């Protein structure tokens, strides 16, 4: 454990500070955009130099590593995320038309100063429930490692690294966004 946070410290992003609250609120509002299928508004949260990836995980012994490999389920830049969003806005992206009903739960948020001035390295846990058509719940869980960049009073997502818990995705497809 680190020293107790000074919640009055305007430069700190430890839990309890104003900055931490803003970061958490940003992630909650982002989740709401996804769950409301407001894809264009969601895309507006990303910086043009975004790299958004979800590596494939394998099942292996701890001594061999964390199981994440250099093949991904998602490996996106600004243009390809924009393409996904444009696609979801057509009425013929059949995997999401009619759309999945999702609930993005975001928790375990921890923030620290990021790689550049004005950036924050933010990790969070996610649990996403999805129900499609008349089917039961599908569950996606994992961790996101984000870099949030301050732009005035707002943030842009400059990096998103999605670490899934499953080695075999047991949920039909990955037509939702994380």
């Amino acid at each position, binding site marked *: 454990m680190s020293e107790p946070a000074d919640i009055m410290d305007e430069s700190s992003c430890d839990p309890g500070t104003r900055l931490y609250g803003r970061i958490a609120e940003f992630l909650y509002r982002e989740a709401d955009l996804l769950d409301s299928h407001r894809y264009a508004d969601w895309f507006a949260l990303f910086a043009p130099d975004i790299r958004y990836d979800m590596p494939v995980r394998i099942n292996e012994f701890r001594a061999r590593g964390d199981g994440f490999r250099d093949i991904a389920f998602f490996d996106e830049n600004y243009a390809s995320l*924009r393409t996904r969003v444009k696609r979801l806005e*057509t009425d013929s992206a059949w995997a999401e038309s009619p759309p999945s009903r999702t609930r993005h739960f975001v928790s375990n948020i921890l923030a620290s100063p990021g790689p550049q001035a004005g950036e924050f390295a933010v990790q969070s846990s996610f649990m996403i429930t999805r129900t499609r058509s008349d089917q039961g719940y599908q569950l996606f869980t994992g961790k996101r490692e984000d870099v949030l960049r301050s732009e005035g009073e707002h943030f842009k997502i400059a990096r998103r690294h999605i670490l899934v818990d499953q080695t075999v*995705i047991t949920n*039909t497809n990955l037509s939702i966004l994380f």
Partner: protein
Amino acid sequence: MPASKARPGPTKSTFTCLSNGERLETIVRPQEGLISRRIFADPEIYEMEQDRIFARAWFFLGHESEIPKNGDLVTRSCGRDPIVLVRGDDGIIRAFLNSCRHRGTRLCRTDRDNAHFLRCPYHGWSYRNTGELASAMGESHYGPGELEKDKLGLIAVARLGVYRGLIFGTWDGSAPSLEDWLGESRWYIDIIFGRTGGVEIVGVPQIWDVDCSWKFATDNFTDNYHVFSTHQSLVPLGLLPNDPDFACHGHMVTLGNGHILHFVKGPPGVEEFEAMGVPKTLWPKFADHLSPSQADLFTGHCISVGTLWPNFHWMQLVSAGDMESKPIGFLNLRLEIPLTATRTRMYSWFAIDVSASSEYRTASYEAYVRTFGPAGIYDQDDMQNWEDCTSASIGPAAKRYTMHHKMGLHRQRDPNWPGPGVAYADSYGELTQRAWYGEWLRMMSAPFANGGQSP
């Protein structure tokens, strides 16, 4: 090569009755384009497939490049049987049932590793990576003749073969050799996997489960007709042409033993769509590795999707991965493992020419990962279809009806096709599906005669 030698499974057709009295031959009539919906989501059919198809067909296990070093291993499955695919300390690739000879425990519990010995955690039985039982814990407690270690090696597949880096195995000791079984398809495998001297798998497969019959996926991997409708969302984005006939300019080819494929042309005069999207800098290599007619065929086409019966596919495609990139070729290998009648485990690998430049590697990978696999902007819509086909084929009323596989029923073969097999012009048609179901019916039409043999 006489065709009869290369055909595993039954040599004469016998009637196969289902528990409701129906005969498979009556409800599956490929020559008429009538395939019963019953065969897709029915547990009885699934159980028969396990013995009659998966316990004797050659099945895909992996690619040599996945286990390049001695001791490298990956775990796979064939039907419901778990497999460990390992390159032994002697450099030889083997495939074993991933199960200890003592209590049957799953031996390798990770997806990949490098090991000299495979040690069972249960009672400590330890096997060399070449399969022999090296030691058991507490051996002194066994009396004379009780632990015959030389007879307790890992259970190996009956036959294993490697062709152009592709590793296949079969549980049927009487199966033809891999080369004979591949037969005419080798000419095309040589093109797709040998065009520039060889291809390699990059990284690990994406693996995911879909609530569908495996056969709806298999059916889809030889279907050009669906592309415009299923992937319609990509038309307004400029990733697919606004022409319902755009993927029809090619040939379907049926080969022996149920192997099938397509060769489809791209829009004429567009360099990105020639040679299946392999960059022009690599084209000089075609002359070193392909015959002139193979090289002409490859250079003149944009897409080749092939199935090595029953459940392994290559997809050599050309697409941009997003609205701003240029189209580029990529090679995607696919496998469907049926888990139940209505649930299937999908494997998707990315492969590329060994001699690829780093630019081509990156562009090809990005195009693949953005368009195919479970998150792919093409592929995710296919999974929706497979699930919806399956869920609507379960009920008793649906099972009384057939699907419709009649397109091109009266089409004549194209005598000018330069390669082996029977080729039909116009790549919109259901000739390859009918050939696949024909082989399915043949394999399903007799019980497994030589199952249960001890190695």
